[in-house]
């Protein structure tokens, strides 16, 4: 099928009657079928998508179609869609049907987007390779022996492999950006609170956010402008209007910092480093100020991240107890065994590891040493980051130390796996916007992703800057 990089191309094709929404949906459905081995989709709502396509085709003919007519979207399996199953890729709510739609989904539907199915991910969004899904690993379409990245692996691969035009993921510590880097797509984590979390199954509430994976910054801007904005159902959503994400930086020169430690760190793949320097040189050549800075606190971000996110997760996941919905152990005989056995049987090993870690750091006697300490370091990192943004507009780094790794390579070493997030967790700890965009390939022709971060609520500026960089596109 035609490879539409941005929605404007689809829109043009529809307006000039080169294609129809029905034809697009059929093509995506065919692609999904032929790429079933990637294991990106957990469920495809084919009939519904076809029916919606017909209606939207009619709307287009009538001139009443919404801003996303013809946009076919997949959603990560931790985003609720009314009367559809949502499982967070976990056995514990395998057959759970949501009674309501996430605000983000609701807003997409209003503009005539078509939700084609739910996408595989790491269980409860905990992972960096999609190997923690209860429903199997997602394969990277460029090399089926390699991981998709995670936790939004299905999200990234669905866009990479043209199974849908764009997809929603969620990002708690890099879960959108890291798989985007591994798949050569654009992965965007907005400023915390830009998109309502209502309907996003919580992993770590003060870090989580929904964001899109796309093939162009234009689409990121478009989707953001539709999903963003205050929501009475999310008290942590930014209240002031945030819907204008189109911004033109023009030829204005920018100040860009890169954190020396991110490139000096052991384990950064040489080609990733080269790609970063290549961009630095390009930006300098264009007249931007690009300078190395030091952020020694970077070595704390992983411990801080795992202390705080597991603490929140241990509480957020308490509701899955075999009681009111979801899996109830057949071996349960009373209240305690219902809770204990249901959770033992329903959760996978990584989720259990994080629940135990989080329970530990919150327990009395350890709370101050871990949770309180981590909160303090979070504040320190935030302050240091704010300092950086006094002098710079953006912070540049690789998205990940390496390109997509082999399936199974790190699955027995949680610490190694956690380090895959080292450059991405920073943005979640501080709540700032960050994007991963493709920038070159490594020796094995796997895509390299670079990350640009901006200060709080500077989403529009950040997206405009990436547009100016003109990353290489699939």
């Amino acid at each position: 099928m035609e490879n539409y990089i941005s929605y404007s191309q689809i829109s043009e094709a529809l307006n000039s009657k080169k294609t129809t929404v029905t034809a697009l949906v059929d093509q995506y459905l065919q692609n999904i079928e032929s790429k079933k081995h990637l294991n990106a989709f957990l469920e495809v709502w084919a009939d519904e998508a076809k029916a919606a396509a017909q209606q939207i085709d009619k709307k287009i003919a009538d001139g009443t179609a919404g801003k996303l007519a013809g946009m076919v979207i997949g959603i990560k399996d931790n985003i609720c869609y009314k009367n559809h199953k949502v499982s967070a890729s976990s056995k514990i709510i395998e057959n759970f049907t949501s009674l309501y739609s996430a605000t983000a989904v609701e807003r997409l539907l209003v503009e005539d987007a078509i939700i084609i199915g739910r996408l595989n991910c790491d269980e409860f969004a905990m992972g960096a390779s999609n190997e923690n899904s209860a429903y199997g690993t997602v394969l990277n379409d460029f090399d089926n022996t390699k991981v998709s990245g995670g936790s939004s692996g299905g999200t990234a691969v669905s866009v990479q492999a043209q199974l849908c035009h764009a997809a929603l993921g969620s990002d708690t510590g890099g879960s959108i950006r890291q798989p985007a880097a591994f798949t050569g797509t654009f992965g965007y984590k907005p400023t915390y609170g830009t998109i309502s979390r209502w309907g996003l199954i919580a992993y770590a509430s003060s870090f989580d956010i929904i964001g899109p994976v796309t093939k162009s910054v234009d689409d990121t801007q478009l989707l953001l402008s539709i999903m963003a904005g205050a929501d009475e159902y999310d008290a942590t959503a930014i209240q002031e209007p945030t819907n204008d994400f189109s911004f033109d930086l023009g030829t204005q020169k920018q100040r860009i910092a890169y954190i020396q430690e991110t490139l000096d760190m052991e384990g950064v793949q040489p080609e990733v480093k080269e790609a970063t320097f290549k961009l630095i040189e390009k930006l300098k050549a264009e007249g931007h100020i690009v300078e190395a800075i030091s952020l020694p606190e970077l070595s704390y971000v992983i411990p801080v991240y795992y202390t705080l996110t597991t603490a929140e997760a241990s509480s957020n996941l308490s509701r899955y107890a075999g009681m009111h919905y979801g899996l109830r152990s057949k071996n349960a005989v009373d209240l305690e065994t219902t809770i204990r056995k249901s959770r033992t049987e329903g959760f996978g090993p990584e989720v259990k590891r994080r629940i135990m870690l989080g329970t530990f750091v919150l327990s009395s006697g350890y709370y101050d040493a871990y949770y309180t300490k981590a909160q303090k370091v979070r504040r320190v990192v935030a302050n240091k980051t704010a300092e950086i943004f006094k002098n710079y507009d953006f912070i540049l780094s690789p998205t990940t130390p390496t390109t997509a790794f082999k399936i199974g390579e790190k699955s027995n070493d949680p610490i190694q796996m956690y380090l895959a997030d080292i450059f991405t967790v920073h943005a979640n700890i501080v709540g700032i916007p960050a994007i991963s965009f493709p920038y070159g390939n490594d020796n094995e022709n796997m895509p390299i992703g670079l990350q640009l971060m901006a200060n709080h609520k500077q989403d529009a500026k950040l997206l405009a800057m990436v547009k100016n960089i003109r990353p290489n596109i699939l």
Partner: protein
Amino acid sequence: MSESIYDKYETVIGLEVHTQMLTKSKAYCADEYEYGANPNTQVSPISLGHPGTLPKHNLEVVKYAVKMGLACNCTIAEWQHYARKNYFYADLPKGYQITQDKTPICTNGFIEIKLKDKEPKRIGITRIHMEEDAGKSMHDQDVYNTLIDLNRAGVPLIEIVSEPDMKNGEEAYQYLTEIKQLVKYLDICDGNMEEGSLRCDANISVMLKGSKVFGTKVEVKNMNSFRNVQKAIDYEVKRQIEAIEAGKTIVMETRSFDAQKGTTFTLRSKEGAADYRYFPEPDLPPLRVTQAFIDDVKQQMPALPKALFHKYTTEFGLNEYDANVLIESKEIANYFEQILAFTKNIKAAANWMMTSVKAYLNEQALHITDFKLQPKQIAEIIALIDGGKVSSSAAQKVFAAMIEKPAESAENIAQQLNLIQESNTDELQKWIDEAIAANPAKVAEYKAGKQSLVGMFMGDVMKLSKGKADPKIASKLVKETLDKQ
């Protein structure tokens, strides 16, 4: 007489009172709640703890908590931080309760309790914080299963924690009475302990008199009336003293009250107590309570019983007993004050409230809010008496008749019943002359000095007038007429 073992000890009691807020919707979602609705009908994905749902602030709850804080002379915190209290239970859908931990909305207050024949005593309020209720587990509805009703899940509560300032069951009883009166005055809770909208746990310890170290604290739960709180405390104090005297040690534990036996029994030991793993609620950003907000709440607050008591006993000159009866509930006090909008006769208004109105309400088992007569109508009756138009006894008849015909004015009713007193001297003179003419012998006795016979003639006049003669004027005329004989 030797000193009783009980006199050697001093008792230390602190109460934790949970009161259910009467807000229209739940604490963190829009579900409505009403006691007694069909199980699991007042729920939503939020109160059911469905995946992806989030709590939202209910400003009404904050307002209610501020009201109670002000009424208890507390300091109100500027920033409201919320916390999660984590524990697993069947009727707690989220697996945690949203509450306040280190930063309660109200701190450092007090209330005064009235004790028989003693000066009022001040009981410190350590803190008041906002939280949400859990659902209800019903263990006795089904032989094999515990049934869960989640209607109550998420209903807002405030927990009022007292200082350990109480010394016995009676003080605890009075404290609860005050708390209940306050929440009802403030209209934030209906104070119904039987329905569970007001719940109380007691922390009780004993120590030798003069000791500076508190004894081991025992928590007693499951008391469903104020009297039972009192009984449970008195039982527990006795039990602890006897145990210590018998050489046993008191263990830190939670006990339950058995209302049938009037005793307490071990529910669980504190050693195995849950670690609630409190931490800041990440779904609710801190909420600022501004001085303007507090001032606004202050504006909306009714006069509180203590202020009313002061006003009634000083400004109105009522005795303490009457004042206490009138302030018992806000509605009674309101009604009383509304009468005063139409009459200057405060004493009469108080009397009517204390006697006829109260008697009628008691007799009919009615609440003042269901009383058919308007305060203005009571004032009309008072005016009829004060204006000499009806006698006090006739006024009772007017009152009774008015309840049947609440749409009519008191004067109309008095007229219809022919109860208006005759104060026209010509009319009165006719009856007096008739009475005197009928009793020449008694007139002679009067003339001979038996002044008390005026009363007898008055009786005759009243009879002849069928009770309509204005007694004041009539008695003056009787005397004058007799003297002229």
